[in-house]
């Protein structure tokens, strides 16, 4: 039965045309993503190496000035970003690790782009998420309704074929058609990613494939359910298109807005203001406790305590900064989680979370890098303030004449970033997978019920 369906699809040209177009888009998206990822990641790795070399090679100077010159950390772009670039255009890529303040990653690609950027980036993920269901609709909207109209449905069921068998056959055919379109692309992608990223990347690709398979499975069963329930092909097409447009264009935006209202984020100004105020208070408290005065750099604080003061500042500040940034990032994470649970109704939301999470281009990955970069900065700061306390403070009034050299610079290690592993990414995002699975089960139940409802 499935084989006959498949032949029909092929014959009437839909599979060739629609599937062909899809494949073309996927190929373009992959090629472009490949080229971009290699260029960007290559540039970042090179810059990171140069940056450290420059740090080591710097002249002798007061360590605090070196801390102001600082180091850079460049966020690497994982190979799976070729498949799903996720939020990459909307988050920064570069962080300047300097003294005194935790900063954020800067230079979002979308800042350097026009409003055209907001329409979206061509990526494999985009094509599959947005156009994938459309392909399924085009191939399957008249699966039941069309046969009913033609009268062949009556014929088939009079041969003793049970509705569930019919459903299974058609679902299999659709799935096979999709596989014919997508499997070659998947294999090619696997090969390419293996070259770029090794087993980790291939494993991630497998997980991605799983997620997309579930998503497209939901689409297949949903399309068949609607085709079975609705009396005419025209109405079936209208209903399916309405669901597709609602699910792919409308729902993500509505969900995003609602999530923001439930878990709002502060404005930049409010965030900075609050953090500044709390830092100020924390510094004062720490100074009062440990230095006996809270007048910053007042006359009571001679230069021979400059290094210690810096150290106390840093330590007091770390806790406050952690608290604020955690709160901010947690609000983002909570917004995302809320939307992923909405994936029960709108599978796209759950899939997006899964896809980005597993590809390593979601906010959790960004946060992980920010935290790692900050750890590096703190390492640098602590080493420097320790050095100052040891060597510069004893100089008293001639504190700033102290100049450190290569010995100190070399003690700051090279920044090695280890991204979240595939296993950890899986663990963190398993909820989305669960939601997708539930949605698939629901779709299967719905389809099973739908085929039995209408008489052929």
């Amino acid at each position, binding site marked *: 039965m499935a084989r006959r369906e498949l032949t029909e699809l092929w014959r009437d040209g839909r599979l060739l045309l629609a599937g062909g177009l899809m494949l073309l*888009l996927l190929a373009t998206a992959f090629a472009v993503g490949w080229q971009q990822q290699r260029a960007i990641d290559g540039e970042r790795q090179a810059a990171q190496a*140069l*940056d450290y070399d*420059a740090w080591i090679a*710097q*002249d002798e*100077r*007061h360590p605090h000035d070196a801390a*102001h*010159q600082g180091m*850079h950390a*460049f966020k690497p772009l994982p190979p799976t970003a070729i498949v799903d670039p*996720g*939020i990459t*255009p909307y*988050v*920064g*890529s*570069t962080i*300047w690790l300097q003294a005194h303040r935790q900063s954020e990653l*800067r*230079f*979002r690609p979308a*800042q*350097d782009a*026009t*409003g*055209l*950027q*907001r*329409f*979206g*980036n*061509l990526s494999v993920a*985009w094509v599959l998420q947005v*156009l994938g269901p459309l392909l399924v609709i085009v191939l399957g909207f008249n699966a039941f309704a069309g046969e009913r109209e033609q009268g062949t449905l009556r014929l088939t069921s009079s041969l003793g074929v049970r509705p569930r068998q019919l459903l299974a056959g058609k679902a299999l055919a659709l799935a096979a058609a999709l596989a014919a379109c997508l499997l070659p692309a998947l294999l090619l992608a696997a090969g390419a990613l293996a070259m770029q990223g090794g087993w980790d990347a291939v494993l991630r690709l497998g997980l991605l494939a799983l997620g997309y398979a579930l998503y497209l499975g939901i689409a297949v069963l949903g399309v068949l359910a609607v085709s079975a329930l609705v009396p005419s092909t*025209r109405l079936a097409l209208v209903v399916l*298109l309405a669901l597709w*447009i609602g699910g792919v264009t*409308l729902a993500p*935006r*509505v*969900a*995003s*807005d609602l999530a*923001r209202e439930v878990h709002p*984020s502060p*404005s930049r*100004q409010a965030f900075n203001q609050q953090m500044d105020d709390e830092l100020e208070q924390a510094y004062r408290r720490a100074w009062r406790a440990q230095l006996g005065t809270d*007048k*910053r*750099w007042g*006359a009571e604080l001679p*230069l021979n305590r400059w290094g210690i003061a810096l150290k106390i500042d840093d330590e007091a500040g770390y806790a406050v900064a952690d608290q604020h940034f955690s709160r901010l990032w947690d*609000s983002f994470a909570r917004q*995302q989680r809320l*939307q992923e649970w909405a994936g029960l109704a709108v599978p796209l939301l759950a899939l997006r979370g899964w896809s980005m999470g597993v590809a390593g281009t979601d906010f959790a990955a960004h946060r992980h890098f920010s935290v790692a970069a900050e750890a590096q900065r703190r390492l640098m700061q602590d080493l420097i303030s320790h050095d100052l306390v040891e060597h510069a403070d004893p100089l008293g*009034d001639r504190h*700033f*004449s102290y100049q450190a050299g290569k010995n100190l610079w070399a003690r700051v290690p090279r920044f090695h970033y280890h991204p979240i592993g595939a296993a950890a990414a899986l663990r963190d995002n398993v909820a989305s997978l669960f939601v997708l699975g539930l949605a698939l089960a629901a779709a299967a139940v719905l389809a099973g019920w739908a085929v039995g409802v209408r008489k052929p």
Partner: protein
Amino acid sequence: MRRTFRNFSRVVAHERRLLWADRSLWAVCGLLALLLGFGLHNGLAEVKAREQVLAAIQASQPQREAALADRLQRVLAGVETPDPFANPADPASVGSGMGARSALLPYEAMAPLALGQSDMQPNYYRVTYRSRASFMDDTELESPWHLLSGPFDPLFVIVYLLPLAVLGFSWNLLSAEREQGTLKLLLSQPLTALTLVAGKAALRAGALLGTTFVVLAGVLLAARPELRSAAGAAALAWALGLVAAYALFWLALAVAVNALGRSSAFNALALLAAWVLLVLVLPVLMNLAVQAASPAPSRIELATRTRLAAVEGLNRYSKLLAADYRYVAQPEVLQPQDGKIEVASRRRAQYLVGRDTDREIEALTERFDTQLAGQQALVARWSWLSPALVASESLTALAGTGSERYLQFRRQVGRFHGEWKAFFEPRLLEGRAINPDDLRAMPRFAWVEPPRAQLRAGLALAALQLLLPVLALAAWAAWRLRRLRVV
């Protein structure tokens, strides 16, 4: 001629009756109104929240300045001993933080229509004499997930959903008549197919545009009093005009497809394919093309060069940096004497490093701005391909949240930064103390709205990019309808 017009109005009246009875007029217009209303609600709420932030900054400014002037008086009178790093008489303290002034970009009256770039580009900067990199690379805080999804603002409804409403109404404009069987009877009367189609199209255009205009104009005029002026009304008129042109494009497309004389099913598929192509796929492909044709300069290069410039600066001023703070041993150094004050050499050096860094990378940062302007021009030129893009860009520009206006803002802030530095540099390097006159004379940022002429030219071009295809499609349809297959 008169007969044609009479026939036309009869068709229009008949269609109205038909669609009214059919409930489809209610359904589609009602749904559209609902979605637009929701979009407006979101847009208004966002803009209101952001304007409150700006207002708060604006309100707190005079307070801070008064407090600073107060402190200066006390220090000059000798009543208060100044803090070495927060000394109101010290140009280094005042210029680098204490006296910092905010540069604000106000939201336009039409801002709730299209949130555009306002969720990422900041509308305010806190300007000090420190290097540009210290304050100008920040962005507004927003969940990246939300940036990726995009806001549900009126622009979204207009660009993505209004075409669907138009198409949903008019996909089977003519093909339904043929499939129903009424076309034969209709065209056996002295009625041209063109008049028939024109009448049907006119009614649909009227209903949809009427709904859209009433909702948009009604809500915006009520919620944004600034629109009630002549300039505001002009902006609103432009917005409604562009929306109308965009809707008319889709109507003209539907009419053209109907004029082919194929079945309703064919029409539906063709129009859906057109929507998917023009609204979803083409802009994404164009994004790719524009990025390829006019790629942004490397931010990594900027970061690296900035740091290198900083290194050079540190090396150049190493002697100054190695000097010690004298306030510890000689606290009287913190008080101004005869209008002079000793500015700590380290602080002078820090300023100079920042200034030199800015100079070094000026050419590079200028390239980013030029590149963005170039991309914008490219987008404007290529928008012929996608009416969705034309509508999106033009309405965003009208709402004052387009990349062009933010670019202008950054340029003006850059100039202000230069003025700020020019004010403080002589004081810093020559050791001139800050006095109350100086506080009053410190540069203040005043946003200068770019000349309207350029905006209007852009909007006119956009209108042309929308209306020319409408005319072409209409002309083609009129020609094709002469040979319409009736049976």
